[in-house]
């Protein structure tokens, strides 16, 4: 008998949809040419690549296909957007604003720029899990060149007001990038309606393959290539293109968009079932961002008086995969920078548990998680020397 596994970590990565795998297969063994070659094999691969690019551009509502650049993933898209836009034209200074709860791919790019002549401001989100446009307006300066705020936060699930933030940046002459790896296909993403100059996406968050991503880069922007070499991707991203990956990305996104309306309702119902059950059965527990616009598939749970990694390991032993922002899971002794950025106290942030639902999550999975988590929390709280002292008086 195989062990029952319930995968509730879709915000970390997803299972590649078998329909995507099938769509990719011919581009490994049949249409295997280098899309930059002039011969028939190359031309066929180039046709496949441009087909994928066109499909992605349409789904993002880009005005031109060549605004879509294929990359190796979300991290490369984020790194190259920040560094490529900031250092374009040999620029060595200027002001950059990023939110304090960005993915590390953005934060560390900003930090790198900060060490190389640029001035970086970390914009603090509020405890509701949102970055406010008025805060951005106050932080923008004459010399601000670039703003980067993520679309959906990966730990909280909260959706940022991207159109308002981009408009605020543009009013002061700054460019606007968003990391949309977590939201693509889960909520509407239209580069034209949102008014962004650049956006980063990842294939493996949308039931596509790992190792492929997209950088949307609006036509006409100055951009310093981050990978140098053969001048592929309109001289903006060198390296022989991942044709199967590009085809896989396009198919994955098509499926996401075709199923989004129904899937969004289904996931929201499952998420609400999960949150209602957990909050009803466990005292001293809350969910982040419930008063804010949220993605349908992420629950950022805080279980007071329990350490996140201990919950994760017990759940894993019961066949359930989730993740945590606790310090102990990170290798550092700091709790998640996301939770600290929204002023969640350290001692409470250690009890974070992120449950993220996906295409194959069922009601039975949710019920199994709840039935498993409740005794785990009770066990760990009973084993704690301080639970009663710290939280026993706050039964709620």
């Amino acid at each position, binding site marked *: 008998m195989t062990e029952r596994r319930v995968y509730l970590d879709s915000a970390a990565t997803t299972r590649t949809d078998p329909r995507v795998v099938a769509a990719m297969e011919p581009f490994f063994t049949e249409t295997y040419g280098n899309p930059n070659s002039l011969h028939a094999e190359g031309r066929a691969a180039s046709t496949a690549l441009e087909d994928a690019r066109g499909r992605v551009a349409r789904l993002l509502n880009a005005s031109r296909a060549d605004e879509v650049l294929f990359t190796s993933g979300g991290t490369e898209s984020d790194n190259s957007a920040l560094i490529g836009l900031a250092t374009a034209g040999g620029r060595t200074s200027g002001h950059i604003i990023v939110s304090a709860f960005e993915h590390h791919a953005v934060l560390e790019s900003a930090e790198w720029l900060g060490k190389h002549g640029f001035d970086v401001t970390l914009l603090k989100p509020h405890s509701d899990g949102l970055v406010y446009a008025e805060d951005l307006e106050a932080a923008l300066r004459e010399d601000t060149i670039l703003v980067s705020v993520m679309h959906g936060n990966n730990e909280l699930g909260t959706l940022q007001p991207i159109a308002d933030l981009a408009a605020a940046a543009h009013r002061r002459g700054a460019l606007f990038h968003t990391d949309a790896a977590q939201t693509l296909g889960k909520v509407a993403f239209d580069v034209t309606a949102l008014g962004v100059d650049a956006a980063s996406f990842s294939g493996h968050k949308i039931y596509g393959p790992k190792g492929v991503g997209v950088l949307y880069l609006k036509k006409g922007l100055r951009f310093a290539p981050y990978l140098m070499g053969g001048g592929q991707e309109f001289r903006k991203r060198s390296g022989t293109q991942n044709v199967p990956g590009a085809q896989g990305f396009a198919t994955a996104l098509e499926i996401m968009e075709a199923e989004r309306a129904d899937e969004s309702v289904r996931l929201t119902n499952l998420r609400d079932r999960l949150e209602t059950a957990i909050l009803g059965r466990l005292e001293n527990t809350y969910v982040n961002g419930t008063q804010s616009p949220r993605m349908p598939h992420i629950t950022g749970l805080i279980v007071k*008086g*329990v*350490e*996140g*990694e*201990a919950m994760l*390991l*017990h759940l894993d*032993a019961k066949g359930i995969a989730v993740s945590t922002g*606790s*310090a*102990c*899971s990170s*290798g*550092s*002794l700091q*709790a998640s920078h996301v939770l600290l950025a929204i002023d969640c106290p*350290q*001692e409470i942030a*250690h009890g974070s548990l992120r449950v993220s639902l996906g295409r194959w999550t069922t009601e039975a999975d949710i019920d199994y998680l709840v039935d498993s988590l409740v005794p785990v929390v009770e066990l*760990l709280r009973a*084993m*704690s*020397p*301080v*639970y009663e*002292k*710290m939280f026993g008086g706050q039964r709620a």
Partner: protein
Amino acid sequence: MLYSDKVMEHFGSPHNVGVIENADGVGEVGNPVCGDIMKITIKVSDDHLDDIKFQTLGCGAAIATSSVVTDMARGMSLADAVKITKAEIAEELDGLPPAKMHCSVLAADGLRAAVDDYLMKSGREPISGGPEDVDGDVHGPAEA
């Protein structure tokens, strides 16, 4: 970062969990900000650890090191118990990931604190010499 089977055994079914009523010594170390708090209670007779129990709030390694240190110390003389090092605790668990070594420090410190508490309550001098570490790993007194 992977845990050894031994860590997972102790984490999944920890030994000596609880609080000894009318304990002879109590050691409480760690703090809620760093996320790990450990409390050790001991029963002493003839300067040996007759009984030892723990309660821990913390990650897998914190619970496993707490569990294993109570196994190691049970029956030991007080003088030997305070000499248990973080390295010995980690070794007993077939190793700990580098980022988790501070958890074994917590367990060793909790044991020392309990022994010193017993000695001081009996009007004797503490013998542990205080927390083992070093390296910014020192866990302060529990604040909760």
